[in-house]
């Protein structure tokens, strides 16, 4: 569905690259997470894949279209939701969607249904300029769904949204994916990536460091840990034990036999911890 080979991009048209030798393929129906801190090259890669930036070097194919040729028909098949909300502030929410809907050559979804999906149907006839940041973000998000895209590019789809709305957005992405949509998700929110993505790529300083499924990454890099709360001299003490280190395993066994256990649970490494472990860098 998407093929990227030897992609390089330089904003200064020299050897200072924002993206260096990016290679990956995304299968139909896959949710692919592109994870990295700000300035890592996520948006640049997405920019080239969506035709917003010119393809300077490498091969990029999206839905069978060569991005070097920048054919406009491609945009009937893809949807792009931007990190920064970009709607006409002087038009109403409904007018914004109706305008974009008319630009497609394929059947489009009902704007009112889309507005209802993200709880904006009550303000459909209000100008977008009067909306809060979160409302504008939701409007930008549903606009990218208008043409029922086969490939959906989502740039930080839950950023700045309250937990309830974020949950709603995540469920919408899951539903669309279940219907067959391929999703390219750009984010630095590891919880969202962990929940949604079939595979993730870690990108830092323009280079992809690793591509794998969250499960494989946890198995490969994550250390299984057991957290135990137990009573010691009338106080509760919390201790962590590694399930791979022999010393920890022996201590845990002793505690289980002799200690007064109050609570015990296993803890997996998060994607964020793995990211830090792999790249040596945090996400912000």
């Amino acid at each position, binding site marked *: 569905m998407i093929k990227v080979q030897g992609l390089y991009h330089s904003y200064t048209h020299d050897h200072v690259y924002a993206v260096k030798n990016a290679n990956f393929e995304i299968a139909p129906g896959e949710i692919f997470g592109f994870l990295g801190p700000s300035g890592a090259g996520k948006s640049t890669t997405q920019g080239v894949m969506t035709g917003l930036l010119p393809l300077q070097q490498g091969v990029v194919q999206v839905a069978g279209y060569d991005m070097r040729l920048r054919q406009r028909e491609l945009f009937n098949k893809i949807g792009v939701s931007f990190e920064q909300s*970009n709607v*006409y502030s002087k038009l109403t929410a409904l007018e914004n969607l109706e305008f974009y809907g008319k630009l497609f050559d394929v059947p489009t979804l009902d704007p009112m249904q889309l507005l209802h999906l993200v709880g904006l149907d009550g303000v459909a006839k209000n100008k977008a300029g009067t909306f809060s940041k979160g409302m504008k973000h939701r409007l930008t998000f549903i606009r990218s769904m208008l043409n029922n895209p086969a490939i959906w590019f989502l740039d930080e789809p839950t950023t700045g949204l309250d937990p309830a709305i974020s949950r709603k957005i995540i469920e919408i992405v899951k539903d669309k994916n279940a219907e067959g949509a391929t999703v390219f998700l750009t984010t630095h929110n590891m919880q969202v990536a962990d929940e949604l993505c079939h595979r993730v790529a870690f990108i830092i300083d323009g280079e992809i460091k690793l591509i794998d499924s969250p499960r494989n990454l946890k198995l490969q890099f994550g250390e299984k840990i057991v957290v135990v709360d137990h009573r010691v001299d009338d106080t509760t003490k919390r201790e962590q034990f590694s399930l791979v280190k022999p010393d920890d395993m022996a201590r845990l066994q002793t505690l289980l036999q002799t200690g007064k256990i109050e609570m015990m649970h296993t803890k997996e490494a998060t994607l964020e911890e793995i990211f830090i472990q792999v790249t040596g860098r945090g996400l912000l």
Partner: protein
Amino acid sequence: MQKLWTTFVKDARLSYQGIYFYMEVGMAIIFVLVMLFAVPENFDRTQTFYALVEIEALKGELSELIADGGDHQVKFFDSRPALEQALAANRSAAGIHVHLQGQRPVLELVLQGHESESMKALLRSTLEGAMASQLPGYVDRTTVVTLETAPARLSDRVNLLPIYLVINVAFMGLFIIAAYVFLDKEEGVIKAFAVAPVQVWHYLVSKIIIMALMAVVVSTIVVISLVGFRINYPLLILAILAFNVFGSVLGLLITSFFDSMTKAMGALFFSVFVLMFGGFSYFMPWFSPAWIRLLPSYPMIFSFRELLLEQGDVAYVLQNIGLFIALSILLFIYTNYRFKKTLTV
């Protein structure tokens, strides 16, 4: 075409709700009001002479001589201080002091000091000629021949209209269309448009149509208010369209080299400034070097002038309309190419 129409309707809605449309209308209203109520149909060109004539017999004769020279009037004073005081009070007046030196009359021209050398010489020779004509045996053998037998003239009020039309039609459009594009860039909507299955030229042409409609409506109302219905309006509208499209395309081209209004302001201002040099030749016909005649504003201003004249040169106007249509097409092809490369970069 359906996508162009959709884009145009959206742009029309945004323009109608934006400040620039009302700025344009407001400027037009102010211009019409100033022209109708503050600017006279024709400026007063009467030259006032203040005279101190110490030879009583010459007073009547001098009045007649000055009146014969055209739209002149003369007022007499009794003393030199009174003459100079009156001249100080009216800075456009010229003074004449006639007195006796021995037995011979002497004529002294008393000027303000701001007159040019040519004006001084003209006044001096006018008076000398008038005096000489009184000598016995004087015969005037001077004949005046003009290359243009019946030069057409606009009233002073309408004479200002071609300048307004060029500013409003061509160069305001240049600024406003740039502002529209940068507003789209600022709001980020240009990126959303770039990932829709539409062509870049839809985006550009839609904005050009908006500007053209605005120019036609506003300019036609201004011309009707000041000139009435005596001119060829279909041709005027055609000229407004051709010149406005040229200005808009030029504005778009300049815009394609910048990513914000602040950065583009210098280039936009400089372009308008240079292009307006054509106005110098309009008000100073003796100053029209080839490089000025090559600037777009020159044929635009003179085309509007011809359109406003009762017997204007239609062929000249049509020739310029054709020229600007051709130039606009060429410029648009390059602008479209530039926008394809830079729309979201």
